[in-house]
Every structure is written in C-alpha cells, then in structure tokens.
C-alpha cells in the first residue's frame, strides 16, 4: 500500500507541475476531474470479475516510476531519425509528436482550409475551438478506465483533425507519436481528436514508435466522431520499442449511415494493450475492424475490442489475426453488445491465431451479448500451428519446410494487409511488416 502511494506521488507531482497556464477553465476542470477519478480507480488489476484485465497484468506498469516532462521538445531530432521508425509518404499530411508534444519541425501539415483542419490540440484549445470543447473527452468514459483517466488528467497537447461536412479529404493524415525512451523511464500521453462531420470522408493513420531502446510508457487515447453518412478509414501501427509499455485506446462514435473501417497492426512493446470501442449510435452505421498482432520473445499483446450496436440496421465485421512465437502471449477480447433497440443488427467476429511455438499462448475470448431478437450474429476463434498436411502438400512441390512455412505465415498475415486500402501504407506493410515475420522451422 505504501508503495502505491509513493508511486502516485510521482504522478501527482507531475500532474501539478504540468504548465497549463492560459488554458480555458473547462479544460482545467476536465483534467482535475480525471485526476480525481484516476486516484479512485488506480491501475487495473486482474482481480476476480475484472474480465477486461483478466489475462493482462498491468502491475509492471503500476510498479514502475516514470518521469514526465510535458514541455520536452525534440532536441536534435531530424526527419531522418524519425522516418526510420515509421511509415511515411510525401503525399501524406503528417503531424509528429515527440513524447506527446507536437513537433512542428518534423511535421508537414496541410494549410487549414474550409474543408479540413489539421493542428495540434494545444493550438486548437488556445484558439477556443468550439469543436474541441464539445467533443474532447466527451466520448471516452474515463470513469471506469484508469489509464484513460490518467491520460486525460495529463491532457495538454495532441492531434486535432476536423473534417468539414461534405468534405472528401483524399490525402491521408498521419499522426505520429514517438517516444524518445531515454535512460530513465518516462511516460507520455498521446492524444488525438478526430471529428468527421456529416457526409465527409477521411483517412487517418496513427503510428506509435520508439526512437531509442529505453523503457518508456506510452498511454494514448484517441477519440473519433463520425457524423451522419461520414466515412473514416483508420489505421493504427503499434511499433513501440522492445522494452516499452503501451496502453492505448480509441473510442469511435458513429452517426446515422456512418462508416468506420480500422486496421490495427501491432508488433511492438514488451507489454501492449489496445482498447478499441465502437459505438454504432446511428441507424445503418457500420464498422469493419481488421487487426494483426505479431508477438515473439516474452512479449505480451492484448487487443480488447468492444462494439456496441445501439441502433437498428447496424453492421459490424471484426477480423483479427495473431502470429505468436517464442514464449509470447497474446490476448484477444472481443465483445459485441446488441441493444434491445438495435433490431436487424448484423455482426460477425473472428479471431484466428497461428501459434508457432509450443511455449506461446493465446487467450481468445469473443463474446456476444444480444438483447434484440431480430439479429444476425456470429463469432469464432481458432488457434493452431501450421497445418502439417498443408506443409506436406508444399513439400511435394519441391519446397523445403522453411520455404513452405514462410509462405504460409506470410499468406496468413497478408490476408489482413490486403484489407488496407491506402496503397502507400499497404506497400509499407508488405515490405516492412510481412517480410519480417517470424520464420519457423517445423519438426516433422
């Protein structure tokens, strides 16, 4: 208990030290509320009944002391350094954040127009954006999520994307969150707010990566508001450093006829968790969620997805895949909730795992909670090694076991990469992600 108090003291000192002079009162109040909530909630534990954290132990994060400097600036970082860690394309708009703070010099953002505004949250807050005030932290229920509460308590900067009604933004907007990971463990609180007004279209890519091998904690929250008939494509790459802790969440709310598609690719961090919550809050709204997690060594990656069908004629498609090697562990929790009102819901979820090592383990728990009676819902989860019959088929065509395994693992993963519609990102994933998958020498 004493230890716990000491730990929070560090957060408390940093909380009070955060320079928020000149910020509007609503933001100060929000931060204070979130801080108070964090003190009540603390970090989640895998206690009985806490299904969301049943298979992931957050204690290593809770135990460690992380320093925080909300004013740190990216000294000595050049585009060359940062580009090595992330996908990039000259055509993309790019906002780079280093330890949670906007790095203008590393960014290439478009001029704000009537159609789209891409800026740092700090700028948006200081210019008294009504959109920010009406949406920021309104969609993230930090009341029951210690990590989200902590992020909100430290809310100072982040990314803000506002797509005007009817605007079709063809250029993908890339939000890059880099952690420097220095000698002493540090924490940063990446934050993003994306508002796509009615009838608009946009593509947003989030990348999380570390620049040095040091231990750090990246605690992120993204909020996405998708208006009536609006469409957002969202890609998320978690490529944190090997020793890093990453706990991120995204909350997505859709209006009538809105469409959200997501591709979440995770392979970084010693301990990684991604919470994706989608609220289908308008009739006819739809989401398509794809994901790929690749673990090796002693990594632990957890994907926790919650889809809530709140209105009729809503559709959700969830397809996640995992490739596990070494002594790693992966967790997939997928919950689909269909409210009583949400008749004609069409929902399916699937999680497939390729477990390459006998020491690796996956806990896959898809679940359906249905309160409406006229719905079409299905779910399934599989886990297994490469099929021996399949390998024999390939060997009988002259391939050795290594080549056969590599093709099969690559094929398994490429089904998810193929869902990526942004061609430049797909090319990056094909060359950087697929070609570095673990190989496997199978014993026969």
């Amino acid at each position, binding site marked *: 208990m004493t230890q716990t108090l000491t730990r929070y003291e560090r957060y408390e000192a940093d909380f009070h030290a955060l320079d928020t002079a000149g910020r509007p009162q609503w933001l100060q109040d929000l931060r204070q509320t979130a801080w108070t909530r964090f003190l009540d909630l603390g970090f989640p534990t895998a206690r009985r009944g806490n299904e969301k954290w049943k298979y992931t132990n957050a204690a290593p994060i809770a135990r460690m002391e992380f320093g925080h400097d909300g004013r740190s600036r990216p000294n000595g970082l050049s585009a060359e350094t940062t580009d090595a860690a992330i996908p990039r394309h000259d055509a993309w708009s790019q906002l780079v954040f280093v330890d949670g703070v906007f790095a203008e010099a590393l960014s290439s953002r478009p001029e704000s127009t009537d159609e789209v505004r891409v800026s740092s949250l700090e700028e948006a807050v200081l210019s008294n954006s009504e959109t920010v005030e009406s949406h920021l932290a309104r969609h993230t229920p930090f009341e029951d999520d210690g990590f989200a509460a902590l992020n909100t308590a430290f809310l100072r900067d982040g990314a803000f994307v506002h797509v005007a009604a009817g605007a079709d933004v063809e250029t993908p907007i890339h939000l890059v969150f880099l952690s420097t990971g220095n000698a002493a463990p540090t924490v940063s609180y990446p934050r993003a707010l994306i508002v796509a007004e009615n009838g608009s279209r946009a593509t947003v890519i989030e990348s999380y990566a570390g620049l040095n091998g040091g231990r750090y904690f990246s605690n992120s929250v993204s909020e996405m508001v998708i208006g009536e008939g609006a469409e957002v494509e969202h890609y998320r790459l978690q490529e944190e450093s090997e020793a890093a802790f990453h706990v991120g969440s995204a909350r997505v709310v859709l209006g009538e006829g809105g469409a959200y598609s997501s591709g979440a690719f995770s392979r970084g961090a010693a301990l990684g968790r991604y919470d994706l919550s989608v609220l289908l809050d308008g009739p006819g709204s739809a989401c398509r969620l794809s994901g790929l997690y690749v673990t090796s060594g002693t990594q632990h990656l957890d994907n926790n997805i919650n889809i809530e069908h709140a209105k009729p004629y809503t559709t959700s498609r969830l397809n996640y895949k995992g490739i596990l090697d070494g002594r790693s562990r992966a967790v997939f929790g997928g919950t689909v909730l269909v409210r009583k009102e949400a008749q004609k819901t069409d929902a399916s979820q699937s999680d497939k795992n390729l477990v390459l090592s006998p020491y690796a383990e996956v806990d896959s728990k898809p679940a359906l909670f249905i309160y409406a009676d006229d719905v079409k819902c299905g779910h399934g989860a599989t886990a297994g090694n490469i099929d021996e019959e*399949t390998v*024999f*088929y390939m*060997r009988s065509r002259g391939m050795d076991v290594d080549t056969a395994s590599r*093709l099969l693992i690559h094929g398994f993963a490429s089904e998810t990469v193929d869902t990526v519609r942004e061609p430049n990102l797909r090319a990056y994933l094909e060359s950087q992600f697929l070609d570095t998958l673990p190989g496997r020498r199978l014993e026969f």
Partner: protein
Amino acid sequence: MLLEIRDLHVSVGETDILKGLNLTVNPGEVHAIMGPNGSGKSTLANVIAGRPEFTVVRGEVSYQGRDLMALLPEERAREGVFMAFQYPAELAGVRTWQFLKASVDAVRKHRGMKELSIREFDRLLDEKRRMVRIDADMVKRSVNEGYSGGEKKRNEVLQMAMLDPTLAVLDETDSGLDIDALRIVADGVNSFRSPSKAIVMVTHYQRILGYVSPDRVHVLLDGRIVRSGGRELALELEEKGYDWVRAEAA
C-alpha cells in the same frame, strides 16, 4: 526401369495397408491402378510422394535406380516425382502464382537450371494454364481456396505441367469431375506423355481410361496387386466388378 517396387509393406499406426506390393514402371508407360475403396490405392500414391504418416515396414522402392524412401518429400519432387492430390490443401493467403514460382524455383535450382525471370515464368505459366483452361485471375487467388472440385483438379494438372516431372502419380484425379472437366484433365495428362516419362493413375473408375489409354492395368486388392493386364482388363472390371478378381485371387 523408372520405378520398381518390390514386396512393399506399409502401415499407418497399427494398421497394415500395403502387404507385399510389386510394381514395375518403365519410361514412356502409363499404368492404371484400380481397386475398390480401402484396397490401398491412395496409400501407394502417397508413399511414393513421401507422406510422413506412412511407415514403410518392409520392401524397396527404387526410382531411377535410387532408394526413393531415403529421400525427403521435397527431394523426391525435385528429382522428378509428382503426385496429384486427391484432396489438395487450401493455402489461405498464398497466391497460386507465388506458390508455383516457389515450386518451380526450387525444382529448377536442384536440377542445375537457372532461375526463371518473372517474365519467363509468366510466359510459361500462361502457356500451361491455357492448356488446362485456368484463367489469369485464378492464379492471382489463394491456392485452392474457394476453388470448385474441378478447378482443384485442373490446378493439380497445372502444377504437374509447370514442374515437368519424370514420374507423375495421379491420385483419383478423375473423381468428382464432370465430363468437360474430365476431358480437360485428360488432355493435360495426354500432352504430358512422352517416351521419357511415366504416369501412374490411381483410379476407381475406368471412365478416364477412355481418354488416357493405359499400357498396363493393375488390380489392387487388400494391399497387393492381384492381377495385371492390358487395357481390356479395365473393361472386364467395369463389366464384372471386383468380386470376380477377388474370387480368382483367393
């Protein structure tokens, strides 16, 4: 002599399946192995290809004068042994194009031939796939995934044509095909015939023998070849069934 099998005994787990099988195949010949379900036909094909779960208890299989059983499945393929699968595996996410390129590369490398450029490979693939009427889109799809039964069998014949083996073993490649698909498959097999190559067709029905004329027909019963003859033996079996051979063999 291309293939010589002498006194072959094979088991799976505790079950004996082949019980002293003898077979000699010379270059240029087409052999048909016929027999009722459970007689060991598929086992014979799979043992030649090197399926791991079969145990050779006794006997010899020599291919081009070498001990075939000492080779890994991939080594057999590179040495020119090919089996068309009765139930080909589906390879999620592995495109047929990619699969064939990896196979052809492996086989050519072993045979001391230079690797085909993408262009050369595409030209070869276009030629061969037209023969078995597989369209260009199909080779971009995952291997056998979502293929109809007939498409899978044609894809097996395509692989045979691409790998250019010396000994082709067809495991019930004719079963489940409609008449058009059967013709396409038979044409593919016939175009493969040459004085230096041999074909062993494992089949349940004599139907395909109307399109691919065998030099020798063998009846496999309870793990042994109990009768061999020419083309006319297949017709006799069609007429009288296997009971007649069984009675004579007893």
